[in-house]
């Protein structure tokens, strides 16, 4: 359980990191908190000759809020995001979801950018980023671009980023005042990757749902948005969304899922429990929304 040899590069600036990535191409890998990458290297399931360590790049860490958007640097530790007052205020769902990410020891090292870039289909943050309508800032040798979270995740453990691109920050638009959120998951133990999970963000105006975003995680090859449920909900009167209607929506959200079996759960369980969680998430976020 020792990694194969690699060279460690420790740039101080984003530009240097990009330079290194463009020189080494797919021989290089970015190292952030190391909580996912290091085990892969140690088990020799992955190997890279060059590691580009982002930990010295100060400009990649930090949280700012300009009244419209919350901007979180890629290297900001998950533990810092979890307790940041700006986050609790403008993106409470993110703070709540982080409590499910591993254990605090892991969140002390693990980064927000690393979690998004790693694109584990069972991870919480990618789904949360999707339902909050987040956009990631990407920088590469060909310049900067922005990718909406909905378009970021290509495959299991794969984003649309090129090998020489860096995820530098994530932007989360502030939600309207009348909003409700929920994140629900079932894991074998506290801190394990979810067997099934759901993130949900609803907002309303004049007694009607005006925006509904529901994303499932742990049940597919990427986090999965549920556009059909959004379509059904948007425009509905809050009063119409009684428990039976929500159960139907939950069934709709999970109708096309076909998760595989593994040692922790059967696929059919994941699907059934996902429906249960969608129902619970809708109830809880509606409740919060009604209180708002």
């Amino acid at each position, binding site marked *: 359980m020792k990694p194969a040899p690699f060279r460690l590069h420790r740039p101080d600036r984003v530009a240097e990191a990009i330079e290194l990535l463009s020189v080494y191409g797919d021989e290089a890998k970015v190292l952030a908190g190391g909580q996912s990458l290091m085990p892969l290297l140690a088990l020799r399931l992955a190997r890279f000759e060059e590691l580009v360590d982002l930990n010295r790049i100060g400009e990649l860490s930090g949280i700012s809020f300009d009244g419209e958007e919350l901007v979180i640097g890629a290297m900001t530790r998950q533990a810092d995001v979890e307790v940041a007052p700006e986050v609790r205020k403008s993106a409470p769902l993110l703070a709540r979801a982080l409590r499910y990410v591993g254990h605090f020891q892991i969140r002390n090292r693990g980064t927000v950018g690393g979690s998004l870039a790693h694109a584990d289909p069972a991870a919480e943050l990618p789904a949360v980023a999707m339902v909050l309508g987040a956009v990631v800032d990407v920088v590469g040798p060909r310049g900067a671009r922005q990718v909406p979270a909905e378009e970021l995740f290509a495959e299991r453990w794969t984003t649309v980023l090129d090998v020489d691109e860096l995820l530098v920050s994530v932007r989360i638009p502030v939600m309207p005042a009348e909003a409700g959120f929920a994140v629900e998951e079932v894991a074998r133990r506290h801190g394990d990757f979810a067997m099934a999970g759901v993130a949900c963000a609803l907002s309303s105006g004049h007694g009607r749902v005006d925006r509904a975003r529901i994303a499932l995680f742990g049940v597919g090859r990427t986090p999965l948005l549920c556009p059909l449920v959004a379509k059904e909900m948007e425009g509905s009167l809050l009063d119409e969304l009684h428990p039976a209607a929500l159960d139907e929506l939950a069934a709709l959200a999970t109708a096309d899922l076909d998760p595989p079996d593994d040692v*922790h759960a059967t696929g059919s369980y994941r699907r059934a429990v996902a*429906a*249960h969680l969608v129902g619970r998430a809708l109830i809880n976020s509606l409740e919060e929304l009604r209180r708002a």
Partner: protein
Amino acid sequence: MVAGRFVGQSVLRREDPRLVSGHGRYVDDVRVPGMVHAAFVRSHVARARIAALDVAAAERLPGVRAVYTARDLEPLIVGPLGATMYLSAPIPSPVALASGDVRYPGQPVALVLADSRYLAEDACELVRLDYDVATPVMDMETAAESEILVHPERGSNVVSQSRRWDDDLELAIRGAPYVVTRTFRQPRQSHTPMEPHGVVASWDRFDGELRIWCTSQRVHEVRATMGRVTGIPEQRIHVVQRDVGGAFGQKGAMRPEEIAVVLAACKAGVAVKWVEDRHENLVAGGHARSDRIAVTMGLDHEGGIIGAELDHLEDAGAYPSLGSVGGLVAMMFPGAYRMGGVNWSTRAVFTNSCGRAPYRGPWNIESLAREQIMDAAAREMGLDPVELRRRNVIARTDMPFTNASGMTYADIDPAAVLAETLRRFDYPEFLEEQSEQRGGGRRIGVGVSLFVEPTALGTGTMLGTEAAHVKVSLAGKVTVALGTSSHGQSIATTMAQIAADELGVDIEDVSVVDGETDITPIGGGTGGSRSGVIGGGATHRAAGHVRDKVLRVAAELMEAAPEDLETDRGRIQVRGTPTRSVSLAQVAHAAYVDTKLLPAGVEPGLEALVRYSTPAITFANACHICVVEILPSGQVEILRYVVVEDCGAMINPMVVHGQISGGVVQGIGGALYERFCYDEDGNPLTTTFMDYLIPTSTEVPFIEISHLNSPARGPGGYKGVGEGGAIGAVPAVRNAISDALGADVTDGVRPCDLFESTPLAGGSSR
């Protein structure tokens, strides 16, 4: 036995300051000048013929010292590799490195020595290992009939079997008013000690001495094994360990890897270190449980047990490190109940999987089967499971009691233990609460498990005796040397408590040494819940011998009669006249230096080495009650956990609590989380802690523990307490789940297993 100044008190563990501050010394902390590092090339498949094994490229990697295969090490091997107590067991001798074929995934095939572990692992990747892969035997249920043989030279996949069957009993059981039949399984588990296996070995060909630093339950066994394997005279083999980060049975015998590393050190003439990593430990470090038992129980109209039939099947893996546990399963099955008789057949089979190693109560399936079938029977009869137990339980007044399988118990009182547990738990109140909550839709269940724990077994093996060497120094300080090998049992604390009380000194004036072959008496090590009973007995006796001598010498020095003296805090004084006293140091001075002061007939010196052997088995007994809630998601939450244990007199209640708690946690793991899996082709699937799940602090409830005391007959009245927690917890948890479901849980369960048996209501429920 009167409570001593230290014995019976929760004296703080003297091991803790170094351990909790990160200053323990484990094998990986051992550094020897010139030491190189080993890594293994292992089989990736369960069964194959080795078609090609080419190490040339690995040998050429800079920093690599040597690459060894079976061909290199075999010439050094002159004797069997198994542990002493299993040399005559019907199991194959372990193989240091595979030659010709591989028989389980992870089996070591070659060994690299390099300047660092990193380089050694780099070199492992350069070893070319080609196989002709063959279909493995993975299913224990069909192994005995399979044409494919794990060990072709043995001609059968059956390791061993036993049978005792009485046809009249069978008729009586089958014709009983109530006949209940169930088949129970438990998943394959890994012991997962925090510190995995490992060894540092150094062969000095100039002084002809072999030095071994290990992590073991039996340092004397390590020496005995390596003496046999290498032919190096045992007195030239020196085995040492300091802290051992858990073992749970996995470290009772040397692993083939450890033997290979010692051989490699001898061959290369350099010191070699190998520390198993977690991946290696999970895949190839020794497995446990993985057995199945079919039970039929016949009961009369009143719930009296007419008899039971057992059919036990045990998956031994390819190279088990112990013989079958079937016999003990059968002997302990009656547990704390009266039964008319027991018929049994047991069988252990080989599969192409990691070998079975003893694990905290290796026979535990007897308790699981008995306690679960008691609940099943009660449900079928419409009787409260507790009531069914009450009607059959044995009591102190029945002692000595020979159970239906022929095992004779002494000094236990299960009826009292059951009653005390129910009292602490407040069973009637719980039943009321339960029916209320069930009305509210919650799935809440309670499970009871009552069992008798055979501790300190081993007469007729290396485990039957233990010796303590108690020495008083010139300054009046005490050292106790024991043949135990503490790996978390607090022996340095508990044995000091005993010696301090016997000798009347402060506990700070006593040191305990174990885990070193040169300076400790030959001993069976630590395992099988034996160290408190046998090590404690030996410490008592040896310290008592020294104390007698101290009194005789002190009496002479003070011109008093020995009977009039007492010892207290390192002084020996005339009872009632503390002004007339001498110190232990003064006595030691007379014993070692001023020997003319000694009374006539008293030999110089102030030390004793006394070997103690126990009765065949010392029986302890306990009862667990567990309350669970099954959440709509199928997840199980443990709401309450109560244990009442009768392990006789306690040396240190805090240590006893620790032993019980740790065991209960492992039992919870076995019931709810732990499950080592292979796919059909024999590929291991749960090879890291991401997939092999052990309970963590968030899954473990507060465990309420209390005690009764039916003392054993040996010195101090101690009984073993190491394994009961793990034995009792599996059936308690499973019975609670079964109660909540109203259906039997007959295997380890995952949320998906409980979810599918009772589908969820919609999202609107909790």
